[in-house]
């Protein structure tokens, strides 16, 4: 049976500490930086970069996504779909 995801909020410092555990970082403007120090482009709006405080930090191997309702919905739908859960 698939484990239900628990949603939590994190303060700014805690988000940074979590990101740094996976060798990500946050720049002075609050944008998430990859281990190679590049900003991450939003999948939903390619003209924007992902800000740490508005990001979805997905469980499992850290995945950084847009934290908008549409992106969170998409993330949930993938988690709920039988294809995704095969082999769980």
């Amino acid at each position, binding site marked *: 049976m698939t484990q239900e995801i628990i949603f939590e909020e994190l303060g700014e410092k805690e988000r940074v500490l979590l990101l740094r555990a996976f060798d990500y970082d946050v720049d002075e403007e609050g944008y998430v930086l990859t281990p190679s120090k590049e900003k991450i482009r939003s999948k939903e709006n390619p003209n924007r970069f992902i800000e740490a405080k508005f990001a979805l930090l997905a469980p499992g191997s850290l995945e950084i996504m847009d934290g908008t309702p549409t992106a969170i919905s998409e993330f949930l*739908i993938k988690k709920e779909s039988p294809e995704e859960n095969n082999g769980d």
Partner: protein
Amino acid sequence: MVIEEILVFISNLPLKEVLIYLTGKGIVDYSKPGFEKIKQIIIDKHNEGKYAFVPDKTEALFLQQANADPKYMQISMLVPKYKHINLIRTGILLSEYNKKIEKNEEVDRHRNRIYQIKREIIHQPGGRRLLKIAKLPTTEFFPTILAYLAQLKVNGYPEEQLEEEFNGLVDDWQKSSKFAGNDDDWEEIITFCRRQAQDKNPRFFILALYEKPMRIVEGAIAQLESENFFEEEGYEIKISKGGNQGFPKLEVSIFKKLY
């Protein structure tokens, strides 16, 4: 506190508490000797896959539970492979915020949030159409559209065609729909139906809320039926009454039968 003590203390805490504890101790990175063990505990806890960190926990929880919303369940069943089903789920969130505004609950906050969500959607590529999809669950016509699609399914429409119909409705449900209000009379309903037939619209809808508009719509439909209008134009008609005692409603779906 020495590293070993920190490791023992955090090893049984949930990830969020670990992060709060560590930042409270002034730990901002893992550069000091021995901190790589702390880093590994955080990685291991995150990799357990229990937690997702989001900007707004309440909103994320609502979206998580929206998979049990009857309207969401119905659309997921009717068009399970629909590419933009996430927008329907978001629309159910918008609908919830609208309900809170109607109940006078934190009106400004909810209005602002609706505005933000819509702005985020409209800035996506193809955003105007995406916004139409997200707004659909917030309209009174969404249940009518679902009932219509369900009827098509009963009539044997394959899934791909239901999806095509749904896509079509996203674009033109407004011009295919008539909301009968207190000020409408028979003639307006009849004119609407005749115009839809002239425009060769394969389906159109009428929705009436409360007794008086319901009677007007029923009267207009009865008049058109007595003239054999629907039969002559090749339309099938489905009328359903619903709502509740204080909020009765009448939904009329008129559509060309393919199968």
